[in-house]
């Protein structure tokens, strides 16, 4: 351990550490992009194109930007962007699910109201 404290080696050690961290970030970033893409697919399947357009668009833009960052070898940005894309896609899916549930609830309530009015009319 002592040898690392020698001033001359600090720069090399640091460079090596950054290099290793950088390398470790390559698969991590790519893996995160793959996970985020699956999450985006799920969000699309939930109907986020219709119910959470903005969030879906944001996720898609960030995944593109993440891939660009990989190409630029900016792996930290790539991972951050991909993580954000995943969060945006998860939100898009949640928004689509809640919008769909609210739509069904509203339709059922309206049809109940109509049915009730009809029943009351018939009873008179």
């Amino acid at each position, binding site marked *: 351990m002592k040898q690392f404290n020698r001033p001359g080696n600090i720069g090399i050690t640091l460079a090596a550490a950054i290099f290793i961290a950088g390398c470790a970030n390559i698969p991590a970033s790519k893996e995160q992009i793959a996970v985020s893409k699956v999450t985006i697919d799920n969000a699309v399947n939930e109907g986020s194109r219709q119910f959470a357009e903005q969030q879906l668009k944001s996720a898609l833009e960030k995944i593109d930007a993440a891939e660009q960052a990989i190409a630029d070898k900016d792996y930290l940005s790539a991972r951050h962007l991909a993580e954000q894309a995943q969060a945006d896609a998860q939100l898009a899916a949640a928004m689509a699910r809640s919008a769909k549930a609210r739509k069904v609830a509203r339709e*059922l309530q309206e049809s109940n109201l109509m049915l009730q009015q009809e029943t009351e009319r018939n009873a008179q």
Partner: protein
Amino acid sequence: MQNCRYLLMPLAAIALVSGCCSTANNSSLTDAYNSYIGALTDPGITDLAAIEITQAGALLDEADVALNKGESDDAIDQLAYLAKQQIAIAQETAKQKTAELEIADAIAKRKQIGLVEKNAETEAVKQQLKQLNARKTGRGLTITLDDDLFRAQKAQLKPIGLSNVVKLADILNQYSQYNVSIESHSINPGLSGRRSYAVRRALIGMGVGGGRIRTSGYADTIPVAGTAAVSQSNQWLEVILSDASGRYLSEF
């Protein structure tokens, strides 16, 4: 206890925030904390999206640790962003669950309305059957059209007899699941057959499908249990209600 929990959770969050003196240094994290505290005061979120909001809390904790370690603004902003989105996910999840509860309520209510409707229908049918003096017999619900509803020794219905057939047609048109069997009892089999057909024709004329009407004419060969034998002064026509599979109905 429920109320206490809602009060305590935001207080705990505030304590957490104020305990961490450095949050003020990062505005995105401060914003995320404020949203988090707001979400914790919403019982809908703490009840219906407990897992989602706990995940947001975990991200904020992670951000705190990062801040205390002196990590870069980028790293903290990233965690703050993820926490902010996770809070929004919790809010949407709560809305979704609320809507799902509303759906369950609406379905229960629909069944209730259906039940009321069915009761009202049953009541209406009972009233109409009562007007026709329908009675339960061994063979089912039976409506009797007396001889005096027909012209003497003819197959023509008098206006009063016709008005009874109108009421019967009304019931049959409203409740398509019921079929009728028309049985005429006269001293003369030819007259019996013609009277049954007269009622059948009248019902068809009023919109009842012919397939739902069975007719038969009897002379005095088939006396009905509990009734006097057919004679010149004792002739009648019976309308027996059955369901579509031909079973006689005892009641609605």
